[in-house]
Structure formats: structure tokens, C-alpha cells
């Protein structure tokens, strides 16, 4: 049995359009588009491009915030220091681990929640949506504290409620070991951002044409077959966009680690490393170089998703 999707609609140019020239109307539309998008574009340049360029520039210097007089040009020296340091590679590993685990679990959970929202009774739907969205509305630092308190050996309830689980005892020190710390960090991240992914998937689910479902039903397809052969193939774009956004977000994980372990037990992420060099050590040059490398990593992820998995951002918006 093959998957069923609607044939792509071809975007064809109107036959009457003259080749090579733009009509007055097209020109004025283009102008309007620039006028409408222009302010946003300028703001983006100001708040995104400017800091990125400044960080790139400063990453070429040996520059300590408290000692601006001794600022000196070191070229790519800062990058050399970072890339030859095992701590950098360890942080990359930890960040990739957290990203992979959280995004995968969130995708499955988020899909389940989206299905619940779609299938729920009309009367229940608004309440259900609000309830599912609450964690996403909580500030990350607050959620990190809440999870930390829950797992804390002194004030937490987890150790007393879950002693029946293997590996959990009254004196389990969750933040005293790398893997248990990472477990709690991942749990907090998953709890907080699953609603985001489920919202994106809900939009995708709504795009699956009802006619295809009905046709599959008439053909005698089971519920499971309809899910795998009709629903999922038709919302591939939405899934990929959800994955892309969450991966980019997860790769910059900082708040939860900062609150829960402050980087102890080898739980430093790349963002945390940037914070430590720039804010704590006041080494603006070295810290900027870490930030630039983090930026490049994020660009690489976006590139791999868009080119490698052929994610069409326009298609996801239903264009």
C-alpha cells in the first residue's frame, strides 16, 4: 500500500503575462511589499545582524571587560583556544545529547497531545488547549526551579513518592551525578516545550484533507494504516518545521542547566560555556568566539534541515 497525498498544485504564471518585463501593477505590489516588510526588516538588522557582527568583530580580540586598555588583536587565536579545548567538545556532546533526547520525546508526546486536541469534543477543546499550553507559558527559570525543588533531596517530593521505582531511594541525590542531573534537565525541558511542538503539529493535522481520510476509510484502511499512510505523510512539512524550530531552540539550552546544576558534574552546554567566558570571566573576546561558534552550529542545523530534509517553510504555512 502506498502513501496518499494530494497532487501538488503547480504555481503557474498567468499565460497573459509578458515575458521579462514587470507590469506596473507588479511593480507597485513589489513596492508595497517592501514598504510593509521594510520596518520589520530594519528592526531585524538592528537587533540581530548588528549584535552578530559585533560579536564576530570582538571575537578577534583579546579583550577583558575590566581592562579595556590592554585590548589586543589576536586574529583567530580565540577560536584556536576553543577548538583545541576538550571542554568545548564535551559541551558540544552534552548539548547534542540534550537536544536529541528532548526533541525526540517531545515529538512523540507533542503528536499525541495534538491528536487529543483534534479529537476532543468541541465543548472540551478550548479548555484542553489552554491546559496543554500552560507549561509553555511558564518562564523557563521558574519551571527549572519548580523541577529542581521537586527533585531536591531536602525539599523534594520525588524521593518520597517514587521509591517504588527501581533506582529511586529516599537518599537519591539527583543533582550529584551527571546522568541523573541530565535526566531532570531533560524532563524539565520536555515538560516545558512539548506544548510548543504540539501546537505546530496541531496546525499540521488540521491541514490533512478530510477527503483523503474518508477515501481511506471507504477502502477499508484501519486506524493505524490511516495514521501512517495518510495523516503523517500529509503533515510531513509541519513535522519537519516543528523539529527544526525545536532543535534550534534546544541547542541553545541554558536556563535549566544554570538553575539546576550551574554546570556541575559535566553538564555544561555550549550556551553555558559562552556565559561563563563572557559574563563570569569577563573575557569578551573569548566569550564572543564561543557565541559565534554556537551561532555557526545553529546555522548548520538549519541548513541541514532545510537542504538535507528539504523542509519547505512556505509549504508549512499552507501557501
Amino acid at each position, binding site marked *: 500500500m502506498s502513501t496518499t497525498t494530494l497532487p501538488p498544485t503547480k504555481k503557474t504564471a498567468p499565460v497573459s503575462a509578458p515575458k521579462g518585463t514587470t507590469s506596473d501593477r507588479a511593480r507597485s505590489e513589489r513596492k508595497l511589499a517592501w514598504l510593509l516588510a521594510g520596518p520589520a526588516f530594519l528592526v531585524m538588522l538592528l537587533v540581530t545582524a548588528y549584535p552578530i557582527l559585533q560579536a564576530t568583530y570582538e571575537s578577534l580580540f583579546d579583550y577583558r*571587560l*575590566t*581592562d579595556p586598555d590592554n585590548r589586543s588583536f589576536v586574529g583567530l587565536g580565540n577560536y584556536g583556544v576553543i577548538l583545541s579545548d576538550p571542554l568545548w567538545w564535551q559541551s558540544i556532546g552534552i548539548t547534542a545529547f540534550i537536544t536529541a533526547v528532548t526533541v525526540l520525546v517531545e515529538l512523540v508526546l507533542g503528536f499525541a497531545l495534538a491528536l487529543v486536541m483534534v479529537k476532543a469534543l468541541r465543548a472540551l477543546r478550548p479548555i484542553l488547549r489552554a491546559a496543554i499550553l500552560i507549561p509553555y507559558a511558564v518562564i523557563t527559570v521558574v519551571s527549572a526551579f519548580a523541577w529542581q525543588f521537586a527533585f531536591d533531596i531536602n525539599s523534594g517530593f520525588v524521593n518520597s513518592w517514587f521509591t517504588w521505582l527501581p533506582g529511586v531511594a529516599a537518599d537519591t541525590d539527583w*543533582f*550529584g551525578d551527571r546522568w541523573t542531573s541530565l535526566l531532570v534537565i531533560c524532563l524539565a525541558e520536555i515538560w516545558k516545550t512539548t506544548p510548543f511542538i504540539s501546537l505546530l503539529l496541531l496546525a499540521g493535522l488540521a491541514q490533512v484533507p478530510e477527503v483523503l481520510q474518508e477515501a481511506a476509510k471507504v477502502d477499508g484502511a484501519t486506524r493505524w494504516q490511516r495514521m501512517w499512510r495518510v495523516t503523517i505523510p500529509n503533515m510531513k512539512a509541519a513535522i519537519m518545521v516543528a523539529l527544526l524550530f525545536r532543535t534550534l531552540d534546544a541547542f541553545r539550552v541554558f536556563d535549566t542547566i544554570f538553575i539546576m546544576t550551574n554546570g556541575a558534574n559535566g553538564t555544561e552546554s555550549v550556551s553555558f560555556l559562552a556565559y561563563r*567566558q563572557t*559574563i563570569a570571566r569577563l573575557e569578551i573576546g573569548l566569550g564572543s568566539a564561543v557565541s559565534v561558534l554556537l551561532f555557526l552550529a545553529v546555522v548548520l542545523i538549519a541548513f541541514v534541515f532545510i537542504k538535507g530534509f528539504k523542509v519547505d517553510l512556505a509549504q508549512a504555512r499552507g501557501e
Partner: protein
Amino acid sequence: MPYAADKDVPRTGAIRTGPPARGASRRGLAGAAALLVTAGTLAACGGDGGAASSLTWYINPDAGGQAEIASRCTEASEGRYTIETAILPRDAASQREQLIRRLAANDASIDLMSLDPPFIPEFAEAGFLAPVPEDVAERVTEDVVESAIEGSTWRDEIVAVPFWANTQVLWYRKSVAEAAGLDMEQPVTWEQIVEAAESQGKLVGAQGARAESLTVWFNALIESAGGSIIVENSENPEDIQLGLDSPEGERATEILQLVAESDAAGSAFSTSTEDSSATGFESENGGFHVNYPFVYPRALGAVEAGTLDASVPEDYAAAVYPRVDEDTEAAPPYGGINLGVGAFSESPELAYEAAECIVEDENQAYYFVSNGNPASATSVYDDEEVLEAFPQAPVIRESLELAAPRPQTPYYNEISVGIQRSYHPPSTADPGSTGEQANELITAVLAKEDLL
């Protein structure tokens, strides 16, 4: 009192607007709201530009003592200045981050700041502290414990005003020490208290979390063993010589490991902070515990709140910090808060006048009794009221005289975080190798050849 009313006026600087006319459009309302928010934010950023007599004191969070002292001094100034407090983050490292970033941007709103002593050289070296007038320096160092003067000094000059001087003591439960047969009248060693606690099935509390408190503990151990984290200081960070791989460093690591690996350490030792170890000491397993004096008023407060039995603080007693070697005197941690005046303050003279008021003996005595933060002025320790409220005051004073500061260098943060990274968790610190690794790491970090 012309300035008293100022305190009730919110410092937003926003113009009070009347209720919008009936039928006003939503957009108009939103616009007004946006204006209000913007005006408030701008005013908050700019501080009170014009009013030179309003001083802002950036304080570390406490039990309300500094705010009370601020209002007392405001009153005593008879209208020359008002002191308003602004609260800094909870931990010392974040307090430093916020202050330093503000000062690097020439923030004129910082008139006074409560500074943790190890960071004072960094602030002084960067030119973030307004010079202390000679007469003020003379007055504020009179009859002050030596460690607090040392903590306020950089390059042989007083750069901050000693306020309160903290030190850690060995808190113990009288019943536990007695049952273990430990004579607390005599100096005790770490080995003795671990053994005594183990024999009674009780806890030995210390700060094993990866935080500044771990450096505090390690520094006290290496100093008690007769060594130092920095053996040869230098202006050039690359020339700083570290003594972590010395025999004294090894001995300090042995004690870290001894405590962390003993049955008396408790299950969350590697995440134990000043606060959580005080909680452990309040529990029925409490035995011995190195910590600051706040432990005692904390327990009294818990009794008052009805969460702790009154018999618990009655069982508390304090002795001088444990020794590393039987025959060598202990070098307890030194901490506390000294007052710095911001280099970009618009009225440094008034700020120093306010600082002198803040550190007056009766304010120090009040702070000691109410918040458990020991005075730096020696005379406070003879105050009847202090002795009554804080029976351990003589031990604290003795400890302050013995206390050793943490390394004094503008690069303190690199050294401290390097130590935390190398010696955490304390149970895995190896006397044979950790010192050498830490030496290598911190030296490389100081030379900017390694990440931290």
C-alpha cells in the same frame, strides 16, 4: 524631615495620568500604557539624575538588616541624604557579575555597594571604586579586626570600608560531642570530628557544592595546613604561582576526601551549600557542621516559626574551626561584606559619609544580633546585648583573629572557578593528582589558553 516623604513616592518618574475619557479608543489606551511603561523604564534606567542627595546602596540579600540600617542613617543625616537599597542577586558570584557589568558601563546609580572581600582587588584594579579619603580611611579602620582591614586593602591602600566580618566556626551539638566523648574545650581536628560523628551515626556538614563555598572550604583547609592557593602573587596573571600541588595542597585534598567519603557526609554532600548544610544540622542527624554564624539565628527563627523544636538550638554550641593537623592552629575562612563607593557616583563625599554612618558600632551590633552577621568592629564584641543574644560571640571574635583571606588578586574569579571545577565533587578529589591538574588548569586559564 524634608526627605521622609520621598520614600513613599515610587521612583518611576511616570506622570500620573487621569482616567481616560469615556469612549476613548483602545488604541489611545494602549498608547498611554506604552508611554507609561516607557517613561517608567527610562526613569528606572537613568536613576534620579537630578537629586544628588539620594544615594543608592546595592545590597546583598539579607534578613532586612541593611534596609533598616539605611533608613536609620537616612534619619540620622537630617535631610542631607536618603539611602535607598537595591537588592543584588543571591550568590556572591552573581552579585559580582551584576556590579561589574554595571560599573563597566559607568553606571552612576551605584553610590554604595556591599562587596564580598575576595572581589575587592578586581574592582579596585579596574578603577571601579572611588578613592577613600584619608581621614575616612583612618576612622573606619580604628578598632577593627585585622582580617577585615586586610580584606579592604589593595596595593597597601584602603579601598573599601569594613562593614561586617564573617568567619566560619565549628558548630556542634553538645549532646553528640558528649556522647562521643570529644572534649570540645580543646581544639579538635577534622579526623576527630568525622570519627565522632561516625561513631554516633550523625552528620558532619560542610559545603561540597560546586560554588564559591567550595573554594572557601578548600582555602581554609590549605591555609590551615600551612600552605596557600597562591604562593607567589603577581600583577601579570601569567606569572601567578599556585601552590595547589604542594604537600599542604595534598593534605587539604586528603581532608576534602576524608569528609566527603565518610559515612558522616550525608547523601547530598556534593550539592550541599551553606543553607542546605544548616538544614542538615537542624535535623535529628545533626552532629558537627562548619558554617557561618547565621546558623544560630536561623534556628531560633525556625523555633519562632514553629518548625523546629526549641531544644535544638539549645543544644547548639560553637568552637573554633577544626584543625587540619593537631599541632597547627586552624585558619578559618574570612568573609563578610565591605562597603565600596562607586567610582561613577555623583556624590562620593556623601556616599562616604553614609558609609561611615552604616558601619557605626550600634548599627554593626544591631546587624549582628538581628541578622547574625558578625561585626568587624572589636568593641561590638563587648556589648552586653550582643553577648546575650549571641553567646558564641567570643568564639567568633577569636576565629576572626585567626581567619585567613582567600587569594587576593584581580583574577580571583578564574582561580575560584578553576578550583571548583577541579575539586568537585569532593569525593573524587585525589590527593596525588588533583592538585597538579588544578595548577595546570588555572595556570592555562590565567594565560587565556583554556576555557573555564
